[in-house]
C-alpha cells in the first residue's frame, strides 16, 4: 500500500490497556492555564520512568469550563488505578495548586472515582471549605493568591496506551517537518494525546535489554546508524526514524488519531524525504490492542 508514494508497511501497532482521567485546569487567562497544564504534563512522557503519561488534550473556551474561565483539558494515563491516584495527587498538588489563580476540575465522568481535592484539601490546614454545587463536591482551599478551587474527585476510565506509527525519512529535519504536521492533525482528535516532547519520540524503545536492570532499551532494528550491523528494518535511503506514540481514551480515538497523523505525514511524500510508515509491535504477544496500519488507512 502506498499513499502519495509513501510505503505503508503491512504491520500493526501494539497497544496496552491503561487507566486514565481527564482534568480541566482553569485560570485567570489561557496563559496561566497553560502554565499549570504544562507543569502537570511535564516529565510524563512514558510510564517506564515517569509514573504516568500525560498531555494537553485541547484548550477549552470559558463556556466549556465549570467556572466560566479559560481552561485546558489534560489527560493522565497510568498502568493501574493505584498509580493514577498517586500521580494525580502529586501533580495537581505540586503543579496546579502552585500556579497562581488556577483551579482544577474533573473532566471525565464515571462511577469509578479517585481522589482529587479530597486529598489536597488538607493543605488548607483546617480552613478548607467544602461546597456541594449541583450535587458535586468542591473544595475551596485558602491559599496566598486567594482560593484554590478543586473538585473532590475525578472519574477514571479504561484507556489505551501505546498506539503508534513510525515515520521513516531521509533526514531528521525532513522527518520532523512531517511529524509536526501530524501532531497538529492529532491534536484535533478528542480523547487522544501524544505524551512525548512535542508529541514525537526520537528514541523509540523495545522491551527488555541485554542488561538485566533495564526494562527497555534502544530499538536497534530501527536505528539508522546500525544498518548493516544488526538485522535492520531500514533500507539504504532512510536516515532517520521518528515515532509518534498515541494514548487514547478508546480504540476509536487512537484509530482516528493514527489515521489523521499518517495522512498528514504522507502529504509530504518521497520528494520531501518521507519514504515509509511503519509501526511498533512485539509480535502481537504482549498488547491486547492491535492497530493495523493498512486497515486504518483504507
Amino acid at each position, binding site marked *: 500500500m502506498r499513499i502519495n508514494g509513501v510505503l505503508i508497511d503491512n504491520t500493526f501497532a501494539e497497544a496496552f490497556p491503561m487507566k486514565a482521567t481527564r482534568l480541566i485546569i482553569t485560570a485567570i487567562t489561557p496563559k496561566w492555564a497553560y502554565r499549570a497544564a504544562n507543569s502537570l504534563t511535564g516529565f510524563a512522557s512514558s510510564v517506564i520512568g515517569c509514573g504516568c503519561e500525560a498531555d494537553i488534550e485541547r484548550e477549552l473556551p470559558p463556556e466549556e469550563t465549570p467556572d466560566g*474561565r479559560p481552561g485546558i483539558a489534560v489527560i493522565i494515563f497510568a498502568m493501574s488505578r493505584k498509580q493514577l491516584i498517586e500521580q494525580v495527587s502529586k501533580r495537581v498538588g505540586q503543579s496546579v495548586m502552585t500556579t497562581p489563580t488556577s*483551579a482544577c476540575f474533573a473532566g471525565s465522568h464515571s462511577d469509578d472515582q479517585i481522589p482529587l481535592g479530597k486529598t489536597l484539601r488538607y493543605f488548607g490546614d483546617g480552613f478548607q*471549605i467544602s461546597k456541594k*454545587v*449541583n450535587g458535586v463536591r*468542591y473544595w475551596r482551599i485558602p491559599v496566598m493568591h*486567594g*482560593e484554590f478551587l478543586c473538585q473532590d474527585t475525578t472519574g477514571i476510565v479504561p484507556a489505551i496506551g501505546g498506539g503508534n506509527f513510525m515515520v521513516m525519512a531521509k533526514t531528521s529535519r525532513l522527518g520532523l517537518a512531517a511529524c509536526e504536521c501530524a501532531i497538529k492533525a492529532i491534536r484535533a482528535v478528542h480523547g487522544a494525546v501524544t505524551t512525548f516532547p512535542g508529541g514525537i519520540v526520537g528514541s523509540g524503545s523495545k522491551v527488555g535489554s541485554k542488561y538485566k536492570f533495564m526494562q527497555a532499551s534502544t530499538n536497534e532494528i530501527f536505528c539508522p546508524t546500525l544498518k548493516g550491523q544488526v538485522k535492520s528494518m531500514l533500507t539504504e535511503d532512510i536516515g532517520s526514524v521518528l515515532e509518534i506514540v498515541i494514548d487514547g481514551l478508546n480504540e476509536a480515538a487512537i484509530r482516528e488519531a493514527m489515521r489523521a497523523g499518517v495522512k498528514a505525514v504522507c502529504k509530504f511524500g518521497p520528494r520531501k524525504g518521507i519514504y515509509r510508515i511503519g509501526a511498533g509491535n512485539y509480535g502481537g504477544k504482549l498488547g491486547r490492542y492491535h492497530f493495523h496500519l493498512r486497515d486504518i488507512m483504507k
Partner: protein
Amino acid sequence: MTPLSLTLRRNPFARIDMSPLTPDRLAGLGRDAIARIMLACGRQRIRVSELFDIAGRDASLLRIRRATVQLFRVGFQMQSGSVEIAGNAGDNLGERIQGGEIRVRGDAGEWVGASMLGGNITVQGNVGDRAGAALPGQLIGMKGGLILVVGNAGDRVGERMRGGTIVTLGDTGSYLACRMRAGTIIAMGRTGPHIGIGMRRGTLVMGRKPAAMPTGFRSAGALKMEFLRLLFKQLGTVQTRLALFRSFGPEAIRMAGDLSVGGKGEILVLLNGSQGQTK
C-alpha cells in the same frame, strides 16, 4: 399521557394534609384508586374525589389547580416527579423532599423545604418563615437540594441548615442563616436584623450590603471570590431562572464568623450584584 390534574372544588373548611399525593406515591394508580385516597382535613378524613376534580393520568407530573393555603405538606418526602401548584400553597411545602421538583405559581406558607434532602422547590411568590430550616425537635435543617423564592421570604431562612442551596430574589426577614451549619444561601434583596447569629459554617451570599455589620463577624475586605464564578455558572444549569447570576462577577466583601461561637462560616456581600434587577 396527559399530566394528572387535581382541581380544588371549593376552599376547604380546614387544612388538608396533602402528603399522600406525591408523584411517586401515585405512580401506577388508576383514577379510581386516586379518588379513593383519604386525606386528613382538620379532624376528619375526606376522599380525594370529594375535594378535587381529577383529570389526566400521568402522575409523574401532578398539577394542583386553584390551590389555597389550606393545602399543607404538599410534596412531603417526595422522591421523584414534578408537582405544579397553580395558586398558593400552605405550610410545610416540600417537607423532607428527597428528589423531584415542586413549582408554585403563587405564595407558600412557613417551613418551605424544611429538613429537605434533595430536589428543587421554586416559589414564584413569597414564602413564610423558616424556609429550609430544621423542623421542631430536629437539630438539622435542609441537607440538600435547591429552594428558589422569587418573592420575599420571612424570618429564619436556612436556620440550622446543613447543606443545599436557598436563593431568595426578594427581601428576607430577620435571623437569616442563623445557626447555619453548611450549605449556601443567596439573598439578593434587603435583609432583616440578626444575620448569621450562631453560624458555624456555610456561605451566605448577599446582593445588598446589610444595614449593620452582623454581630460576631469580621471583614476580610473586598476580594475576588473565584468560587462565586463556579456557583453562579452552575446554578444557571439547574434553573433557567438562575441564569441571571451568570452576569455576576466574583467581587465580594468577605466576612467570617460567627466568631463568638468559633464559627468558620462566611458572608459574601456582592460588590456588583445587580441590585433590584433580580426580581
